[in-house]
């Protein structure tokens, strides 16, 4: 019974993601893009949630894994001649690689996961502010290297003509799969150990939880899912530059997660879809719909204001960091977003 009720918590996120995919299929081609990009955002935010939500440690570095995933998936999807024209110095093994759509997504997830693991081994020893700054350093390093090392990617140039295979169906299935993995993880033993450590690290350690190992596991899983999200992103956009996977995306994904509610999967999904919707609406309003004509830039101002207000007055997010439950008993209720105190 408890297990059944537990699984029902997954129903909300899955339903919402499926709804977006289905509604999108009725929309015209130009509007459908907005639905597809909302699903990609949701995937990336869920990936971010797997680490930040369960561990309580803020990461400014997750877009690094999105970036390597996006470039990996993009590079293996473009024909060799095209890659070499964008970046003649490319390593032969990258230039020569060309695989199908599904394989490129697997590669994106693998690259993201491996990168997160390598970064996580040293970094997961840190917490609080030091962890925040260190993950930010990872983002800066990733951006700097991707931008300036022409042997592993197009550098400062655009990687063009990536096949735009991210259909609504594929994105819907992808996002739901990622949500299911995130949910399975948070219900699993390692997930619960990490959540226990989030609530009280001293007590968790006293009970024999190896926090470093649990965080590293979550970070790696989270990195792999973020890489997968990057793969979906590059197949949605059809081209990619390093600037598209840098500070703005970091801000917007963090904003989505925090506005939704950082400590639940439901919060991550609601935040991502809500802000995506608002974002699209405001972008349209900037171009002018009917009587409404906002100046360019009003979109970012609105989002920034919203995020600041939520953080100030409802720090646990609009869902309160709770899963969507049916019935009276709540299975497990994390009270609020409370990252551990800095030492």
């Amino acid at each position, binding site marked *: 019974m408890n297990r059944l009720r537990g699984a029902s918590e997954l129903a909300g996120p899955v339903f919402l993601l499926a709804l977006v995919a289905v509604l999108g299929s009725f929309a015209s081609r130009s509007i459908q893009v907005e639905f597809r990009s909302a699903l990609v955002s949701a995937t990336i935010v869920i990936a971010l949630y797997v680490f930040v939500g369960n561990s309580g*440690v*803020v990461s400014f570095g997750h877009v690094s894994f999105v970036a390597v995933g996006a470039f990996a998936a993009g590079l293996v999807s473009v024909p060799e001649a095209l890659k070499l024209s964008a970046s003649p110095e490319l390593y032969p093994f990258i230039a020569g690689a060309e695989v199908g759509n599904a394989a490129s997504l697997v590669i994106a997830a693998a690259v993201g996961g491996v990168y997160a693991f390598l970064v996580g081994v*040293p*970094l997961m*020893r*840190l*917490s*609080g*502010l*030091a*962890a*925040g*700054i*260190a993950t*930010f*350093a*990872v983002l*800066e*390093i990733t951006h*700097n*290297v991707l*931008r*300036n090392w022409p042997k592993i990617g197009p550098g400062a140039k655009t990687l063009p003509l990536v096949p735009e295979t991210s259909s609504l169906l594929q994105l819907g299935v992808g996002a739901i799969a990622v949500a299911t993995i995130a949910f399975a993880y948070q219900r699993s033993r390692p997930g619960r150990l990490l959540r226990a*450590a989030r609530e009280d*690290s*001293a007590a968790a*350690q006293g009970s024999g939880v190896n*926090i*470093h190992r649990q965080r590293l596991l979550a970070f790696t899983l989270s990195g792999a899912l973020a890489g997968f999200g990057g793969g979906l992103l590059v197949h949605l956009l059809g081209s990619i530059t390093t600037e598209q996977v840098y500070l703005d995306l970091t*801000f917007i994904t*963090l*904003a989505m997660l*925090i506005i939704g509610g950082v400590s639940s999967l439901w919060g991550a999904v609601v935040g991502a879809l809500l802000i995506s919707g608002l974002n699209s609406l405001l972008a349209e309003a900037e171009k002018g719909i009917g009587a409404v004509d906002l*100046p*360019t*830039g*009003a979109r*970012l*101002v609105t*989002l*920034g*204001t919203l*995020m*600041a207000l939520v*953080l*100030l*007055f409802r*720090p646990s997010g609009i869902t309160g960091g709770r899963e969507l439950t049916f019935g009276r008993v709540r299975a497990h209720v994390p009270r609020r*977003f*409370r*990252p*551990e*105190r*800095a*030492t």
Partner: protein
Amino acid sequence: MSALQTIVDAVALGSLFALVAMGIGLIFGVMRLVNFAQGELLTAGAYALLLTNDLPLAVSIVVMFATVIAFALATEVAVRPLRTASPAAMLVTTFAFSFLLQAVFLLVWGSQGDNVGILPELNQAVEIGGLRVRWVTLASIGVGALLLTGLALLLNRTTIGLEMRAAAHDFRTARLLGVRANRVIRFAFLLAGVLAAAATLMLVVQRPLVTPTFGFQLVIPALVGVVVGGLDRLTSATLGGFAIGFATAILGDVLPSGSRVFLPSVVFALVIVVLLVRPSGLFTRARTVVERV
């Protein structure tokens, strides 16, 4: 000779970062808040200079100081609901402030950037014993040293300084002993505003192109420096800011020209290494820190 030249430039960059770092350290000391939006104080100051470009220089500078201080005090009001939040939650909130202000600047002035031609004569070089040093370099070092000394005196010799140090050490006990919390916090923001305004002036002379990310670009390394140096004490935070500026300038000169584009990576990699070895800060007193993971 060129080594000495590099060191002079490095000290100048270090002083600039130290000013910003000290502002961040002051605020952290009294309310455990890491202010990501410190950089937007500089940007606001730079835009104030831009708007008053046609007015006499003294007026322009006064307006700029007033603007930056007003922004600093407004930040204080905005973060009041956060006083009991955890440092990491506060970090994310001020990150949102920073982003919001950048969006506002972008909305008003656009991303192209505007030129503020203030005190261009400071960019001329003066020759001292074979070294060619720009006036602004000397000014940065001078202003930095002056403000840091002044602040040290203020903290050590005045009542409000004593109260601030007490609040930084143990806020709750200080309050119980009669330190007025609001006044101390407001004063810390005020001082941070003065430091940011001074840094704005020095920075605008060196980089006259003002964009919405003008201050953000400076605050990132300064903030990193503060955490690397150690937030526990004002001195270590300030030293951390100085160190990162100094190290950036030196590394920028030492690295072979082919790999100079990777300078940010080298600096940030160094930061990660330092954080791993000394998570509580490079310049904090050696003591046994019980890592609560």
